[in-house]
């Protein structure tokens, strides 16, 4: 069901239904010392917040909203200085 926040492991496949920057999953998981569960937890928190605070078009379906949120989250985690540091690893529970 491509309507839930995707598993990072699923994003490794070309036809997962989502668009993320090349190499994002590998680099994000390595940033978390290859702890998939922790990486997945932090990834979900970012996507959830993007879903909640991004102005999604009212006409977008749930599926399209999730696709947009995943794309935006992948971009900000991979194409900014967040590539090198994870905000959730650093700041514990204070971060959204």
């Amino acid at each position, binding site marked *: *069901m491509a309507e839930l926040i995707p598993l990072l492991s699923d994003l490794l496949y070309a*036809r997962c239904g989502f668009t993320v920057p090349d190499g994002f999953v590998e680099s994000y998981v390595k940033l978390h010392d290859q702890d998939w569960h922790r990486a997945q937890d932090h990834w979900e928190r970012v996507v959830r917040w993007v879903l*909640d605070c*991004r102005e999604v078009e009212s006409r977008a379906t749930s599926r399209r909203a999730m696709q947009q949120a995943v794309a*935006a989250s992948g*971009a900000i985690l991979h194409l*900014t200085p967040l590539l090198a540091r994870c*905000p959730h690893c*650093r700041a514990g529970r204070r971060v959204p």
Partner: protein
Amino acid sequence: MNAHEPVPGGFERLCRELLAAAYPEADAQWLDEHTASAVAAADRAVALADRHADAAREDARAAMRDALSGLRTRGLSPDGPDARIETGAIALTASARPAGARFTVTLRADAADPVLGELAGLWLTARATGARAARLPVRYLGELTRQGVAVFTGLPAGRWTFDLLAHSRPGAFPMPAVETNVVAAATGGYAVAAPNGVLFVLHDPAGRAPVLEVGGTVDRLRVVWIRYRDRAGAARRLLVPLAPRAAGPANSRTGLPGFSPGLEWEAGDLMDPADLGAADAAAAADSVRAAADRRALRGWQELARTARPEVAAAIGAALAGL
């Protein structure tokens, strides 16, 4: 921390908070710069994702069209009520079961998830060809659910063919475009049956004064809205009342000012007249003037009594001006 209410401008704030949490030593200028570039990167990524999703949707539609054309070739009829077509991306199963004098046909599309997700919400039409069906070639609408299933009820016996509608919007029944091809227009009338049992028949669709006949079984006064683009490209909206009759199904006719064939149009579900609001008053007045038979006018008279005051006033004024 766990606020779930959408906040305008919140995305930029989120980026900034994430950066600040990851780089507590950074100064405000650094944060501003990188927040701006993060927002820009996200916008580009979303645009790219939309393009990919649109392309995936087109691929899914094309695959569905291939499967439906394969089904057309293979043929589905009461004599051969089951069929399975496998194309590259989709495995389509069709089965027909008798229900009284008519048939219920179920189409099921099996596909890997990205394709299946894009198929959801697409609309199909089913048509029965054959000597008995030729008198009024009705097209039956059916929607593909998220599980990839479309059900058509009330199909008459005959050889069934299916088509994919090019457009669909949530919350409306998409109506196939009227053929502008002279031969096609001459060989058949235009009749579409929506899944809620309402029948839409277009009389003289390519002519100068097309008339839409809406019919169905209703237990009380209901309203159906129609949306189309006129020849000038402006969007038009009309309401059609359906009042129950002593004998037979409800029926109303309305003119369609400016209707031009070749464009898709839409119809809505049966509506409770009490839900018509001030925003509908203008459309209601236009619709009264477009009403094309006595039953429709009687329906409007009843609506003038039962609708909300702001709409009833507009209806009353339009009726008085007729």
